[in-house]
């Protein structure tokens, strides 16, 4: 019942976007979808927002505006995009995008998916690599301020995992520490596996 209601709400929102934005439009989501894709499934270098955890989106918007998330593309795009956003608008954007159903990117290397899954679920104890599952959930669905990883694009996941090791977004403990223990091949495998994790199998 709850599901039907939220689906109805989404359909209503989608329909309201079909036409040109009215003067009374309170949430200018087109400022976001210009880069993140018209249905917020991600596009080019911009990650999927659809189905991302509400609290995570809000926290990231705050991190961009406070220049805590300082990855190169964040500086280039998101610092400016969030410079004039009110905390209320950040919450509204987070609520909206988290309610959209995500589609898996499916763009990783299928040959690496099994290795990635093993690292995701169990870690590599001998090499002090933590299991991702304990925080991000058995289906990579995320929770609260911890992001959903399932179905994000291979390129985005790989870039984020690499950039922690390069010193960007250092305040996002414990991620910098975790990623430093990963080899380039293991990062590739994790990003590949996660790109195939579908929303349909979740929740």
């Amino acid at each position, binding site marked *: 019942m709850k599901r039907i209601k939220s689906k109805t709400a989404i359909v209503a929102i989608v329909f309201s976007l079909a036409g040109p934005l009215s003067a009374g439009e309170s949430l200018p989501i087109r400022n976001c979808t210009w880069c993140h894709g018209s249905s917020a499934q991600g596009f080019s270098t911009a990650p999927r927002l659809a189905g991302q955890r509400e609290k995570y989106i809000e926290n990231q918007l705050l991190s961009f505006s406070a220049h805590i998330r300082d990855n190169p593309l964040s500086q280039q795009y998101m610092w400016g995009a969030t410079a004039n956003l009110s905390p209320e608008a950040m919450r509204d954007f987070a609520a909206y995008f988290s309610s959209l159903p995500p589609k898996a990117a499916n763009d990783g290397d299928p040959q690496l998916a099994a290795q990635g899954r093993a690292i995701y*679920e169990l870690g590599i104890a001998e090499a*002090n690599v933590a299991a991702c599952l304990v*925080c991000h959930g058995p289906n990579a669905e995320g929770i609260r301020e911890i992001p959903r990883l399932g179905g994000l694009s291979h390129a985005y996941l790989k870039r984020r995992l690499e950039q922690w090791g390069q*010193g960007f977004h250092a305040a996002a403990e414990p991620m910098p520490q975790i990623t430093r*223990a990963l080899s380039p091949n293991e990062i590739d495998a994790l990003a590949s596996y996660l790109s195939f994790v579908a929303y349909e199998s979740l929740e």
Partner: protein
Amino acid sequence: MKVIGLRLALPAAVLALVLSAPSRADEMGGPGFSSQELRAKLDYCKTCHGLSGQGYRGYFPMPRLAGQQPKYLENQLRAFYERRRSNPVMANVAHALSPSMVAALAAHFKDLNTNPIGGAPKEPVALGKTIYELGLPEANIPACSACHGPEAKGQGEIPRLAGQLFPYTVKTLGNWSKERGQGPAKDDTSFIMAATTHNLTQAQVAAIAAYVGSLR
């Protein structure tokens, strides 16, 4: 420069911690591993259990290890290893630890003394304190303090409960027969807890978890 500073801060802090206790460091640089390997393993534990061993709320609650009784930690790691306590991730972790490494890790966490992470409901704390100190005689629940101590610090193989994560304690109190004592071994101490707690209601479980979680 700022980024470099932040990246160096963590190893530097760990190093400072180790160096500040030279006798402990000598003890731990012991058989089978270098002090560098010990630091790497401690960083690994703290990835999930918190940088000060305070615990962390991920998708699953990762328990507080700070101040925990070494004997209890050793017993649990052995239970994970032997699959008496079912947890695939921790079984994997335990398989990569030598007995001397376990002893060194346990000794390190025993000495940490960070504040509880909080997040427990406040209202049931008073009821929790009553149950903890006096038990529930009409339900055949003994006082927790009888074994876990008046300050919930534990002793020997009996774990410290003070400052433990609320959701972790709640889950543990309802999970004895599903998670622990899974092997044929008869000496699994979790059997005591299954019998001790099976009469507790959900509200009473929450009250106990809220109370012990608030203790420093």
